[in-house]
C-alpha cells in the first residue's frame, strides 16, 4: 500500500502504576537534615534541601541528587559521544553534542593524517575544513569540562574519528545505559555506537579497516542491500525503544531486533506493531532478570 491513513487512536489508559518511593517534583523538600551534600537537581533554601527537577531521589553516601527523566546531555570525562561539526574555527571545531553549549574539538585533539606524533603546523590550521567540515559526524571522548559547562572532546584514539556511511538516531541521553563499552558489533550484522549524549550511530559492520589517512577518507561505496536491511531494522527498533522509553544497550537492542523479525520493515512503521515488539522485548528482559 502506498499510503496509509487512519483515525487517531485513543491512547491506552495505562494501568495505575504505584508511585515510586522518594519521587519529588520541583520545590519539594527532600530533607532538612544538613548532613547531606547537595547534588544535581537540588538546591538549598532556608537550610532545607529542595528538589529543582522532577524525578527520583538518588543518594550516594552523603550526596543527594535528583535525576530528571530527560535533559540535555551533561558530559562527564571519559564518556563516548557522537557529535556533528557546526562551525570550523581557527584552531578548533565547534561540535554539537546535544549539550547545553557547543563542545570544542581542538586541532591538537585530533589525529591528523601521517601518524600520531606529527607536529601540527600552520598549514593544518588552514586545512581544517578539509579534515572536518560543517555537517560531518565524529565519534569522540570527553576530555575535560570547562568551567562554564562546555565540553572539550578529543578523537586521539583509533576507535574515534570521522564517521562514514550510516544512520544517526537521536534519543534522550538518559535512555543510554552506561556500559563498559559503547561500541558494539551486533551479531545481526551491523555495528552501533551508543553515544552517551543520546546520539546513536548505526553503520555497516566494520570490515578490514584501512587505517591510511587517519580515518579522514571515507568509503563511499554502496552498502550491500542485505546490510542495509539490517541497519534499517535496527534503526526502527532503536526509534521504537526510545518511543516507549526503554533503556538502550546491546542486549535490549538485539532482543528487539529479534522480536521484530516476524514483521516486514514496512509493517514496523505502524505504531501498534512496534509497541507489540517492544512489549515482547520487555517481557523477555524481565524474565531473564
Amino acid at each position, binding site marked *: *500500500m*502506498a*499510503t*496509509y*491513513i*487512519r*483515525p*487517531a*487512536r*485513543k*491512547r491506552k489508559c495505562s494501568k495505575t502504576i504505584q508511585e515510586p518511593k522518594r519521587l519529588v517534583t520541583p520545590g519539594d523538600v527532600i530533607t532538612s537534615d544538613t548532613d547531606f551534600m547537595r547534588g544535581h537537581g537540588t538546591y538549598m533554601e532556608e537550610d532545607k534541601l529542595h528538589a529543582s527537577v522532577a524525578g527520583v531521589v538518588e543518594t550516594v553516601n552523603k550526596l543527594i541528587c535528583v535525576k530528571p527523566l530527560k535533559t540535555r546531555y551533561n558530559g562527564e570525562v571519559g564518556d563516548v559521544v557522537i557529535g*556533528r561539526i*557546526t562551525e570550523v574555527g581557527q584552531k578548533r571545531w565547534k561540535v554539537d553534542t546535544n549539550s547545553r553549549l557547543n563542545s570544542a574539538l581542538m586541532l591538537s585533539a585530533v589525529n591528523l593524517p601521517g601518524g600520531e606524533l606529527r607536529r601540527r603546523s600552520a598549514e593544518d590550521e588552514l586545512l581544517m575544513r578539509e579534515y572536518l567540515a*560543517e*555537517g*560531518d*559526524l565524529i565519534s569522540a571522548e570527553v576530555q575535560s569540562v570547562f568551567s562554564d559547562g562546555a565540553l572539550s572532546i578529543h578523537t586521539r584514539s583509533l576507535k574515534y574519528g570521522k*564517521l*562514514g*556511511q*550510516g*544512520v*544517526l538516531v537521536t534519543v534522550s541521553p538518559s535512555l543510554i545505559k552506561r556500559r563498559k563499552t559503547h561500541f558494539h558489533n551486533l551479531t545481526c550484522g551491523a555495528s552501533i555506537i551508543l553515544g552517551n549524549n543520546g546520539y546513536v550511530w548505526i553503520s555497516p559492520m566494520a570490515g578490514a579497516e584501512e587505517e591510511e589517512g587517519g580515518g579522514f577518507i*571515507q568509503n*563511499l561505496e*554502496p*552498502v550491500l*542491500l542485505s546490510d*542495509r*536491511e539490517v541497519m*534499517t*531494522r535496527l*534503526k*526502527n527498533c532503536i526509534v521504537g525503544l526510545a518511543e516507549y522509553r526503554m533503556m538502550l544497550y546491546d542486549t535490549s537492542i538485539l532482543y528487539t531486533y529479534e522480536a521484530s523479525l516476524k514483521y*516486514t*520493515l*514496512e509493517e*514496523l*512503521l*505502524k*505504531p501498534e506493531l512496534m509497541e507489540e515488539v517492544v512489549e515482547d522485548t520487555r517481557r523477555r528482559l524481565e524474565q531473564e532478570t
Partner: protein
Amino acid sequence: MAKVQLSLGEKTFIIHGVQDGLRTDGRSCDAFRPMELECGVVSNTSGSSRLRLSNTEILVGVKAEMGKPRPTRPNEGYLEFFIDLSANASPEFEGRGGEELATEIANTLTLTYDLKNVLDYQALCVLPQQCCWVVYVDVVVLECGGNLFDAIGIAVKAALYNTRIPKVKVQVDSEGQEEIEVSDDPHDVVLLDTCNMPVLVTVSKIGQQHVVDATLEEEACCLACIVMAVNAKGALVGMEKKGSSSLTMDSIQDMITTGKKVGMNLNSNLSSVLQEIGRDASSSGFLS
C-alpha cells in the same frame, strides 16, 4: 524549512538506499509513512482537523465568516489560506523566520483551490456583490518532520470536510431591504463537497530515483522536487518544480506518473477514512 545538516557519509547512505529501493526507515520509494487523522479538534471553529505524519504535526482550523465578494467575482464566495509555521515546530521559525515558506505554501494552496471544479463557490455567495462566505483556512504547523506540503494538503482537505457553514436565509422586508438571517441550529448547516478537492503530492528526486513523502533527512539530500496537486480523477490541478537543480524531461514524466498514482491512492484512502470519521466528529485532540 527546518533544515538538518548531514555529513557526506549519511547523504551517500540515503542516496544509495533510494537507489536500491530501501529507504532508511524501511519504506519503498512510493510509500508514505503511516498517518493519523482526526477531525473536530477545536470546538470554536467551523471545522478542524489534526494530522500526524510521523514527526510532522498539522492542525487546521476553518472559520467561515461573512464578507464582501471580490469585485472580480461578485457572485462567489472564496477561500482564504493562512499558514502559521509556529515556533513550536522549530526555533528557526521564531518571529518572522517561517514567513517565506508559509507564503509559499499558502500560494500553492490558493492556486490549486482557486479552480472552478474544486468547490461550488457560487453556493458560498449569499447576496451577489454584497455578502458572501469567506472561508478562512488557517493551518498551524506544530511539529516539522518533513513533507510539509503533502501533510498540509491532506489536513486542509479533512478540515474542509469537517466544516459546517450555517444556513443563511435572505428575506426581503416591506421596504425592499434585504435582510440576512443566519440559522443558529447546529444541524441546519451547509456541508462542503470535498470530492473534487485535490491533495498535494511532493515527488523528490534523490540521486537517480525519486521518492514520495521525504523525511527531513531525505529532503536534505534532494536537489529538486515537484509538488503536484492531484484530484480524485488523477488530473493535475497545479504543479510546481522546487529546488535548486534541473530535471530532464524523462524524469519529469516518471515523477508525474508516480505523483498521479500516489495522489489518487491518497485521495481514495483519505475519503474512506473521512467517511469512517464522519462529518460531525469531535475528538479530544492532544490528550489522546
